[in-house]
């Protein structure tokens, strides 16, 4: 039989009360924080899982945000493409109308005005924005991609390589007196002549015309017939420039979609060549895709934008080329000039009927982009609903893992409290009696 002392009983009572208090404490903590564990050491497995689930939930929330942004962006793009389709449809209708022979020139001029307006609308639509960013600009979303500018070509003359016809001026730079003969049919025209001593003469011809070409071409000059003693004239050709209008051209990101593609026949070859030479660096060439991608899920990304050049086309036959051709045709032109990549100027025939094919092809391009965008929008919507499911699932898992069931927690507290109270009352009785109380 083991010997029990009063101090042992007291110590054991206190020990047991303490154990019960600990249990009560844990249960109360769980109930008030509504979490199963306070520190990872309370249950390391729950803690590890908790960290993982929180990470999942946070990631899914981020994806949902991305998907929502993507959806808005695509929505803006979709609206723009729809508007563009309407514009092209309207242009087509006008083309059909204009192809009727019964129209007078003034009717055609009216239609031309409308087409001009349509061209402006197209540019505006292609410059739509979403939250201040231009949607058709690829990566360059900070400035409008499309712009219409009235373009001119600067024609410069060159001092080298002129040959004379009836003027005794030879190639080269020999100084001396030269006479200049000029022949022409119309126009007033001024030549500045300087003699080696530096004196200048200006001559105005009433019937002179000169033909200038650039660099490697020949300059033919003829002095005015009104000059009485052409032999006393010295002649230098000095550089000057004139500018010649090419038309209202549309640029994409500051570059020409089809350099020198459609130009009125009234523009001189010189001007066209000059324009082409000056802008070879500004010809648009398709580089790498500038697709703006958003993360929409684990390992999945979606491109949210449509690039402008994919919508309008680039190179010959693009949307603006077609509209320009339409304008020229409505103006009465039957041909237009175009310059190819080797720099050769070609003249093409122009007919309003033929333009219907071109407009149809442009419409087709827009439709293709639209349906591609539609497919992507469907994918994004699918992602959105799948992410919503994921969010619910992971949140539920997270909560099941780390949150207490309130009913269970309250019961635990009640039980612990009962046990605690019982141990207090029983303990009190046990330690307060001893033999001394019973001795007389």
């Amino acid at each position, binding site marked *: 039989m*083991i*010997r*029990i*002392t*009063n*101090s*042992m009983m007291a*110590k*054991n009572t206190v*020990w047991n009360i303490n154990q019960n208090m600990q249990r009560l404490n844990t249960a109360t903590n769980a109930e008030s*924080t509504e*979490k199963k*564990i*306070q*520190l*990872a*050491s*309370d*249950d*390391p497995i*729950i*803690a*590890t899982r*908790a*960290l*993982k689930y*929180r*990470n999942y939930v*946070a*990631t899914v*929330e*981020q994806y949902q*945000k*991305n998907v929502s*942004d993507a959806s808005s962006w695509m929505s803006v793009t979709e609206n723009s493409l729809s508007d563009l389709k309407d514009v092209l449809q309207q242009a087509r209708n006008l083309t059909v109308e204009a192809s009727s022979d019964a129209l007078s020139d003034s009717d055609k001029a009216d239609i031309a005005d409308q087409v001009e307006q349509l061209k402006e609308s197209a540019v505006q639509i292609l410059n739509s924005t979403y*939250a201040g*960013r231009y949607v058709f*600009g*690829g*990566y*360059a*979303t*900070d400035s409008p991609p499309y712009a219409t500018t009235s373009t001119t070509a600067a024609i410069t003359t060159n001092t080298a390589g002129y040959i004379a016809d009836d003027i005794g001026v030879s190639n080269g730079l020999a100084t001396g007196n030269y006479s200049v003969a000029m022949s022409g049919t119309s126009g007033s025209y001024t030549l500045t002549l300087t003699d080696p001593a530096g004196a200048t003469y200006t001559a105005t011809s009433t019937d002179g015309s000169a033909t200038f070409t650039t660099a490697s071409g020949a300059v033919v000059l003829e002095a005015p017939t009104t000059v009485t003693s052409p032999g006393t004239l010295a002649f230098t050709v000095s550089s000057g420039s004139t500018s010649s209008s090419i038309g209202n051209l549309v640029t994409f990101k500051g570059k020409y979609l089809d350099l020198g593609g459609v130009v009125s026949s009234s523009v001189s070859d010189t001007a066209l060549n000059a324009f082409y030479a000056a802008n070879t660096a500004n010809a648009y060439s398709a580089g790498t895709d*500038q697709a*703006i*991608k*958003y*993360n929409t899920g684990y390992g999945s*990304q979606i491109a949210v*934008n449509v690039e402008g050049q994919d919508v309008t086309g680039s190179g010959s036959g693009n949307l603006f080329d077609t509209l320009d051709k339409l304008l020229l045709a409505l103006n009465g032109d039957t041909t237009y000039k175009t310059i190819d990549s080797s720099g050769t100027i070609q003249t093409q025939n122009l007919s309003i009927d033929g333009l219907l094919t071109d407009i149809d092809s442009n419409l087709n391009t827009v439709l293709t982009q639209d349906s591609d965008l539609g497919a992507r929008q469907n994918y994004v919507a699918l992602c959105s609903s799948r992410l919503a499911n994921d969010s619910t699932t992971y949140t539920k898992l997270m909560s099941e893992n*780390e949150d207490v069931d309130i009913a269970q927690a309250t019961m635990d507290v009640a039980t612990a409290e009962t046990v605690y109270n019982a141990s207090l009352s029983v303990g009190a009785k046990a330690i307060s009696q*001893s*033999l*001394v109380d019973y*001795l007389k």
Partner: protein
Amino acid sequence: MIVVIATFSGLYTAVRGLYVSQASESVTTDNISNANTVGYSRQTVNQTAVGPAATYTSTLQLGNGAQINSVDRVRNFRLDQKYWQENGTDGEWTSKSNYLTELEAVLNDSSTSDSDFASVMDDFTSALSDLSDDPSSSAARTSVRETGEAVANYLNSTAENLSDLRSDVNGDIKTTVSEINSYGKQIADLNKQITLAAASGANVNSLEDQRDALVDKLSNLTSVQVTETVVGKSATGADVKTLNVNVDGGTLVSGNDARQLECYEVTSGSQAGMYGIRWQDTQGEYSPTGGQLGGLLDLRDGTGTGSEYKGIPYYTSQLDDFARTFAEAFNEGVYKNDTASGYGGHAGGEGADDSTGIRFFSYDGKSSTDLMNGATTTSDIDAVYQNITAANISLSSDVTDDLDKIATASTSGGSDNNENILNLISICSDSKMFDNGTPIDFMNSMISTLGTDSDYAGKQSDSQASFLKNIDDRRTSVSGVSVNEETANLTIYQQAYTASAKAVSMWDEIYQETISMVND
């Protein structure tokens, strides 16, 4: 036959009875008074009958009363030894459990916390994701910088807290060593006192109790092996024993002498700046394995390599490893051991101002140029990142000074070019970065290691405490004072005293009668 009786022997026998009862009452009273004294062993009276003498005739032998041989101290040395052995383990686990719980608080591993590492990292990746949706937005850029700084600050402050905790443990070690020294000296002094007192016949029970109480306290601090040696006999004939205390292979107390330990500052190696422990006289190293001291040393020095305990240095080096690897992966797009990540890093991208080669993470706020210091080869670049630790990681000054330097784009131009940022986001969740997987996985595994170790230490501590209590109960069962028992003894001895007193008065009457018989 004539019976000749020694005249007053009866009286003496009764008086002896009185003395014995009185002495027993004193011992009982002593026990009762000391019922709550810590470490007190109850004392019992060793009472024997006085040998019979030829009082009346040589053939009629009567007893001569009782005498007290000794007042014995009831104590079981074996139980004490067992207690002292287990107390060391208890001390070790308790100190480990306490400090590991503190460590958990430092690493903020509670799942209810909003400032733990997982949240900080989630905020950072969210900010990166927002920036990828709108690379030209300066609000999004600011957010990336702020959350990036939060990541660096978390690592900095955690590393600092770990370092402070290590200093605390170091301080505790010094305190513990001086406590051991003090106890050792006191035990040796008591040994001496006991030897002297016993030789002169004094009662040494309370001194021995004091000595045992000191060993109780000492055994919690470090693991002890205690042996008794007999150094002589007391005046009552009982053995006089001294305690010799060995600690982890070295003698602390031997007879009347106590050796001292001292703390000295280590100047080199992984424990530089911390205290080493050695014996003062021989300067030999002291490496305890158990007790509080053993637990504290494991916590302070354990690197987790091989079979070493995962103490604070383990967690510090894990954090450093994380900082280094993450910074290198984020900046350069290269993982450990030159594994190419398959994505470009921050340095490969272009900022909004077309800057390249900018590193996002650096240390001590250095700029990208200062950080890289002209390194170009992969081994040089690896060497650069060895400079980064969790305590000094920061954002590079290029990024903190100019938000446009955050490299979102893959090539220059295009304000909505977000290709590089998408790469960076992929890097943050790439499972090839660490052996355990993604950055979050790495930190999670560190926290779960800590949680498991802390849980284990807590459970060990609880079970050891329970076991120790069991042994202590058995000790108390043997040597504790039972008030009931002593109260019963009071009654018993009082009755015996009353009976002896009655016997005295009876003998007194007999003598009076005898005397009056003579007196006529």
